């Protein structure tokens, strides 16, 4: 069938051109920044999503001739899909609530009180971010599987009815996901909490408010952008996360959305791309209103906790209760972090994980890793992609956060950019990887990104954009714009004002954003496995290969080495800016 060519009247073109010229006459140099930045973000995010949208509406994936069809979206009416969505909602909400309940008080203890060893607790509580989910899942299986779990052997020995703990339940899955949620939220909340001006709390106390009222009426409202951002992020991650639900949920009959989408692609005679893409788009459309609501609430309110008049950071004295507080931090750390870390160490030194016998301890897995040239190359590639990607996304994220928090013009563009920065976390990685594959392979013209390491870097920048923007947006919302405006009054340009004034004050959040991005890139599998060409393989994909080969002990060894490397990197990063942020560090400073 031949289509009718679209007829455009010359007069219509002239009118459109005139309107554009009129609009453009009102643009100045200050519009270049939001337009360029907004355009870059929309292009990064919407390209793979656009491909998925195409895939969801076409009977054939991109590259093949297909017919327009709504059959993909019709699958939403399937009772199984509805039950999977409901289950996902319950699990993601439960994990978000639990992680917030644990992370918020622990972050407050670490950042705002004189709890002993605060630095140690902060490092410890954020450690799960460094552990690949597949390993944490294996660790919990070893400990709490109903049949052979270490803690469940006790009732078996005593002849009591068991199991004592069963990780393969909905509650087990919520706990598993909450561990990552806590780690993420502690790493996001402590920086801004630490940066809060103590005089605000003191003003509350002087007015006769108790600690509870100060917390409820002053601290929580000031922290709202950060808390709501991180909670939403944790919720979206709970919806799209894959490994935990696969290894912990599925054995207990709990099937979540990402696992279901994965099955529609990988567990069918022919991958059902149309249905899978439609489910991904539907999930995104369900999440976006939540994100838009949060944006509406945050917009138009001020959360400035750091102003230009100088400020003080004090830590609340807990008296003897500080040891109880330290005990709480230690207890949570021991259960959720030390235990899996020890399992990893133990696994890396075991000849076969979970099997004991003569000569069961060995160093051979470390030796094997260091001899594996494929793995060594993967580590080099990962460092290149991780360092480049994390640095680029923090730079981009800083610009986006500034546009969103400080921007006064281009309201629609800012709303669109804000929503766009949520998109990568709203779609399961397995689908986004597919979207990137289609985008890069079918990129028109001379652009040859498919098969290069830069395709990975660009995909990783997109995937890390949500977390980076959320962290920096929340932190920036706390800074009073008077700070950089004062600098500009003194004749300093915007870029220099941001670099000299805003950047040092945001440094803890910048470090957190960079580290989290680096860790996401380090662990990211879905996009990498679709985009990595031979020679460009990254560590996460190499680990998947080891897992597929059943070399779980070598994966443990790789995780231990990664853990040591990232902890070292983190401590190095936090030391660098101490002189730049010196006024905010001591308990009493800055006035």
């Amino acid at each position, binding site marked *: 069938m031949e289509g009718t060519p679209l007829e455009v009247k010359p007069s219509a073109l002239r009118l459109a051109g005139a309107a554009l010229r009129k609009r453009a006459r009102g643009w100045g140099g200050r519009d270049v920044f939001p337009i360029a930045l907004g355009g870059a973000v929309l292009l990064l995010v919407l390209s793979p999503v656009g491909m998925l949208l195409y895939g969801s509406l076409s009977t054939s*994936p*991109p*590259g*093949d001739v297909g017919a327009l069809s709504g059959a993909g979206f019709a699958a939403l009416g399937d009772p199984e899909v509805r039950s999977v969505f409901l289950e996902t909602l319950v699990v993601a909400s439960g994990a978000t609530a639990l992680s917030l309940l644990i992370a918020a008080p622990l972050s407050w203890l670490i950042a705002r009180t004189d709890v002993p060893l605060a630095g140690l607790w902060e490092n410890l509580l954020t450690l799960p971010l460094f552990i690949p989910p597949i390993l944490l899942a*294996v660790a919990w*299986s*070893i400990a709490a*599987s109903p*049949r*052979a779990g270490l803690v469940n052997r006790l009732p078996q020995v005593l002849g009591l009815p068991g199991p004592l703990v069963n990780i393969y339940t909905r509650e087990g899955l919520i706990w598993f996901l909450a561990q990552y949620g806590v780690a993420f939220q502690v790493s996001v909340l402590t920086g801004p909490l630490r940066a809060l001006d103590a005089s605000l709390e003191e003003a509350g106390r002087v007015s006769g408010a108790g600690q509870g009222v100060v917390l409820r009426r002053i601290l929580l409202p000031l922290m709202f952008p950060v808390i709501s951002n991180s909670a939403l992020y944790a919720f979206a991650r709970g919806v799209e996360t894959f490994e935990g639900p*696969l*290894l912990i949920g*599925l*054995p207990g009959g709990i099937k979540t959305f990402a696992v279901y989408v994965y*099955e529609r*692609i*990988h*567990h*069918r*005679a*022919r*991958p059902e*791309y149309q249905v899978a893409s439609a489910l991904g788009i539907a999930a995104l459309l369900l999440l976006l209103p939540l994100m838009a609501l949060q944006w509406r609430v945050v917009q138009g309110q001020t959360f400035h906790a750091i102003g230009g008049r100088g400020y003080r950071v004090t830590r609340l004295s807990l008296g003897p209760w500080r040891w109880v507080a330290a005990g709480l931090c230690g207890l949570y750390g021991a259960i959720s972090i030390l235990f899996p870390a020890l399992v990893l160490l133990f696994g890396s030194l075991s*000849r*076969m*994980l*979970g*099997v004991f*016998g003569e000569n069961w301890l060995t160093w051979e897995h470390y030796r094997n890793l260091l001899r594996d040239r*494929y793995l060594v190359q993967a580590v080099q590639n990962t460092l290149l992609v991780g360092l480049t990607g994390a640095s680029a996304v923090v730079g981009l994220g800083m610009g986006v956060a500034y546009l969103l928090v400080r921007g006064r013009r281009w309201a629609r563009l800012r709303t669109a950019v804000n929503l766009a920065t949520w998109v990568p976390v709203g779609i399961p990685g397995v689908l986004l990887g*597919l979207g990137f*594959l*289609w985008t890069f*392979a*079918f990129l028109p013209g001379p652009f*040859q990104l*498919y*098969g290069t390491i830069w395709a990975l870097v660009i995909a990783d920048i997109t995937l890390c954009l949500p977390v980076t923007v959320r962290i920096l947006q929340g932190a920036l919302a706390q800074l009073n714009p008077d700070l950089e405006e004062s600098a500009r009054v003194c004749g300093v340009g915007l870029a220099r004002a941001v670099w000299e004034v805003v950047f040092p004050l945001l440094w803890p959040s910048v470090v957190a954003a960079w580290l989290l991005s680096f860790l996401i890139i380090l662990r990211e599998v879905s996009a990498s*496995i*679709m985009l*990595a*060409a*031979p*020679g460009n*393989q990254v560590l996460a*994909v190499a680990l*998947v*290969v*080891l*897992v*597929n*080969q*059943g*070399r*779980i002990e070598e994966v443990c060894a790789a995780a231990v080495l990664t853990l040591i490397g990232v902890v070292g990197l983190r401590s190095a990063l936090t030391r660098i800016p101490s002189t730049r942020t010196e006024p905010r560090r001591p308990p009493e400073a800055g006035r």
Partner: protein
Amino acid sequence: MHGRGGFGLRLAGLVLIGTLVVYGIPGMLGWAAPADRAGEWARVVEAAKREGRLVVYDAFGGAVPTVQYAADRFEATYGIKVEVAVMRASESIERIRVEQRAGRPIADLVTVGPSTVRPMMEEGVLRPVEFLPSAIRVSPQLRAKMEEWGLGQHMLTTLVQLYGILINTNLVRPEAEPRSWMDLLDSRWRGQMIMDDPRAPGGGYVFFAAAYKQLGRRYQEALAEQRPFLTRAIAEAATRVARGEFAAMVPFALGLYPRVRGGPVKLLIPREGAPYVHLGLSFPARSPHPNAARLFAEFFLSREIQLRLTQDFILPAVAGLGAQAPQEIRPYLRARLWDTIDDPRRDPEWLRRAAEIYR
């Protein structure tokens, strides 16, 4: 006179028949004369060396370690760099489709099974397997099966994966070991088995189809009633049996056995025999290094790599080499081949059947 003339005629006849045999029939069948073939192959080897590089998509997900071993050995032998990208079968199908459609091919070779090669053939993204000197050494039975399925042109069978049962020796007493596939229906196995998921192409599906054909639907229904735990993470599943989380893994790909061999486990081949599946190599329609790809495929059929397969508990495709496996492995590789999947054209139907039974 009559006698001499008769001899001359007979001689002429023999020469004619000989000529036909040597040149005519192979010509009709598309075979070239050995000398021509040798010359052609020498040109392929030279061209492969000039190409200097090769990209293999390993769609076995790393579960057949021999692929990487062959890549390393090939590089050492010919000086041609081999890059192996490991992925899932479904990912390899989509990547090759996209590369071919976009005109940006990267893969020169892809490892496949019958269920993987069929959709790629239907998409038209593969080219027929060209002449390889060693292809003739592949077991005739295996080649016949591929021809029967209509895959002979597009898939070179290089190995055969066998399936048995893995048990935990701490949990299963010797007298309780399953000797037959039927033994798994005993109530003692209820909730004790971990199973490669039969609802997706893979080992579980091979076992499902084989046992269904041999023992009937009722067998699979009874097995499903034993409530096996279904998984696709087969290597991890084997370690879960070793750790004692499950008493048995069904079916168990023999290629995984070297990974768990040191643990309290035992590999069993039931008396009916081992389900099996052909695995091999296919050539994307357009590829940057087509000659290197052919040379690698030939190298995979070499005695060195085929014997190496036996060390990984995998049956070589080249006839007769299974018997040369290491002594302790030989009994497993000489197990009776029980059955395999049905025609891959009917995969969707079989998988639907599996999904009906294993919910």
